[in-house]
């Protein structure tokens, strides 16, 4: 049995001091300790972004792929190697902007993965442009000087509409709570989506206020209509497991006899 700290790789994170992603890293190691995860059986798969650097900081296997493609990479791995505990992770830009299509289809496909999005409502790595979850009138990027002027994405509501069976939101200010959530997500059979409010102190210093804004909710339901209702009236700062409705993960097992591949070619 390993302690939480023993899941770290020793590679020093590149993150800014105060970045929320540190807490997510800690929450993962805590969850691993609780899960008694053997490091070689876990694989952390990510895209590109500050958040996506995380796999290298863990003592497990990892794949730091290309921007936006953590989910297909993880899907291929998990389908090919169902014995592994595969956790996909990344940022809001990686997951909801360039990776939006894979997010939808992963929710629907329901492969037994955990997907953690460290949502800081900004592109940290590329120095502060708006992401899909950026507030409509946030004017701190030169690329969108008037603000995005577009309504922010609702990741949890979308996950529900797309068919995800486990939907939760955590906060980097509460790594213990987050660790528990991740524990549940790993245990959940099928696709589990965890949105983590994880502040970017460099480009959105206002996010340190989040610790005052988040509020725990115990709305856990397995009823999609109830969940939809809740998520459509949500202020974005509720914390908790909102929806949990396990179904058999994909791919389903099929009976198939051994085939002579060459059979069909013979006249």
């Amino acid at each position, binding site marked *: 049995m390993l302690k939480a700290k023993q899941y770290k790789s020793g590679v020093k994170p590149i993150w800014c001091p105060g970045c929320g992603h540190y807490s997510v890293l800690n929450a993962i190691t805590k969850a691993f300790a609780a899960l008694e995860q053997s490091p070689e059986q876990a694989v952390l798969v990510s895209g590109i972004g500050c958040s996506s650097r995380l796999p290298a900081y863990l003592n497990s296997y990892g794949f730091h792929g290309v921007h936006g493609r953590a989910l297909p990479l993880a899907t291929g791995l998990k389908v090919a190697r169902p014995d592994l505990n595969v956790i996909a992770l990344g940022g809001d830009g990686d997951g909801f902007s360039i990776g939006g*299509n894979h997010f939808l289809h992963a929710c629907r496909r329901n492969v037994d993965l955990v997907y953690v999005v460290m949502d800081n409502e900004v592109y940290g790595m590329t120095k502060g442009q708006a992401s899909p979850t950026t507030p409509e009138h946030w004017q701190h990027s030169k690329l969108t000087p008037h603000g995005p002027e577009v309504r922010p994405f609702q990741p949890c509501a979308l996950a529900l509409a797309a068919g995800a069976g486990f939907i939760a939101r955590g906060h980097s200010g509460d790594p213990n709570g987050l660790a528990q959530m991740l524990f549940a997500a790993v245990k959940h059979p099928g696709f589990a989506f965890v949105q983590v409010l994880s502040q970017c102190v460099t480009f959105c210093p206002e996010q340190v206020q989040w610790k005052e804004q988040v509020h725990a909710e115990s709305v856990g339901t397995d009823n999609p209509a109830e969940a939809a209702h809740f998520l459509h009236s949500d202020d974005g700062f509720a914390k908790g497991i909102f929806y949990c409705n396990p179904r058999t993960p994909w791919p389903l097992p099929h009976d198939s006899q051994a085939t002579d591949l060459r059979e069909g070619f013979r006249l």
Partner: protein
Amino acid sequence: MRNLTIAMTGSGGTGVVALGEMLLRAAAGAGYYGILRKTFGPQIRGGESAAVVRLGPRPLASFCGEIDLLLVLDWSHFQRFADEIPLSASTLIIEDVAAGARPQQLASELLAREQGVQVLDFSGLAQAQGSAHSNIALLGYVAAWLGCDGEPLQSAIDHRLHKQGAEVVALAHSVARAGAELLQQAPINLQPPDAGAAAESPWLATGNQLAGLGALEAGIRFVAAYPITPASDALEWMAGRIESLGGRLVQAEDELAAVNMAIGAGFGGVPAMTATSGPGLALMSEAMGLAVASETPLLVLDVMRGGPSTGIPTKSEQSDFNLAVYGLHGDAPHVVVAALSLADCHYSVAWATQLASERQTLVLVLSDQFLGQSMQVLPPLPSLPFHAELSRASLPPPAGADYFRYLDTDSGISPMALPGQPGGEYTADGLEHSQSAVPSARAQDHEQQLAKRQRKLQSLAASTQWGEVSALPQARILILCWGSLFPVALEAQQRLQERGTPVTVVGVRLLAPLPLESLLRSMQDMAQVLLVEQNHQAQFAHYLQSQLTQAQRAGLPELTCYSRPGPRLFTPQEIMQQVEGLPRA
């Protein structure tokens, strides 16, 4: 040694494609070898369609430019195939009474021709039995002429129609018989091709199916793909079989997902592939670079079609060469292999499957619509010695704390740990990295890793699988080609020899890294080298030139390049014409 080519045209619903398939199968049952090509208009249903069957006593891997017999169930839209079904004065034409008006442009020409047009009442024969299928009557008629209207024809019909129930099959048998009987009253004024002694149990297969076979036999156990013509049927063939081998096929949401899924599986140690065509390949470019940089095995099959952009989706062309060889950003060495015939789809894909695992990188296989979708009668293919897992297993296991995933070895190949293996934990990365897999922007690491990734492929250029050489002792002319033009060039070779012009033919299977020494050797004693390929820009020819040093180039015979795009298939005749037009040939 007489071959013969039979074309069939009709519009949707007349069933010419079914006719072609049953005819090929029946002929194969009677000892013929042969090959079938189907061609469609853009319509999914109800549009024009055509099939061309070539039959003879030896395996036939290509088509020639001549049509000996044209069977017409419906003349409408015939003009759309004018390029693909070139009639000559000696083409015998047999048409159904209900075939409709002959095309304007053809009408006068047809009347003035050596061989007349024979009009027969196939629809009437069918109708007399209560069937609408004039194609079956025609099938019986032609099968009788070929001498395969007995058991071979019956089982071809059974094979095609058995799912529609016993009644349908019985009716078809009797319509076919009526057609066969017609031959006695209305003989075909053409000698049938020679039948041979076909192999013990010959195969009937398309190149796409054989590519799928090669992949699965060599160990592919994960496929992710997005449907696209003309690659889909390779995927469909695998989809029905991979699970019985313990593998899985995923229909992905798009090509970006497909290729990344395959990379994920490959990272997990499960030999994985995707298949696509030009537009999909373009979308995969970024992720293919990831396979190169992270040194993850990845097999990509590109069944080429007419380009650029959506282009001509249902027709063949060799125009994705540039994208396949050069289309990644950064310095991204990888392997590109081209299948040299339908049967070689099996070989090339199996070899490529092993290479991807062995060299831990992207291996691209180029096939094309002609290879992929034509159907051939061929001798059973041998089992091949290519195995993805075996070659993977031969790598040294990671050595605990000192394990360097991207170790700079002599061969350039580093030990690859697989998830689940304790002590091998590392994070694969598309960022440049040090030997220990930690991201690095240092010049030293970058140069080391770039050199290593290049080096691990270099020895491949010397592999015996690099290509196929069909040499004739007195040849002073070399025909150099790649991919699906190889069988065409072989046929040109044979015909040229009959005319007293011996040529040697080389088909290049390994396009990158280019097997330069072997190529130079094959060129060295030649007076002329003719490069042939099916694209507009002479893509391979330019590439070959780019790889030669000034000195090498100076020492070479003159290189002449004959390159033209699809959709017209290449014929032996046009290659012969090029050979005969060479300066001092």
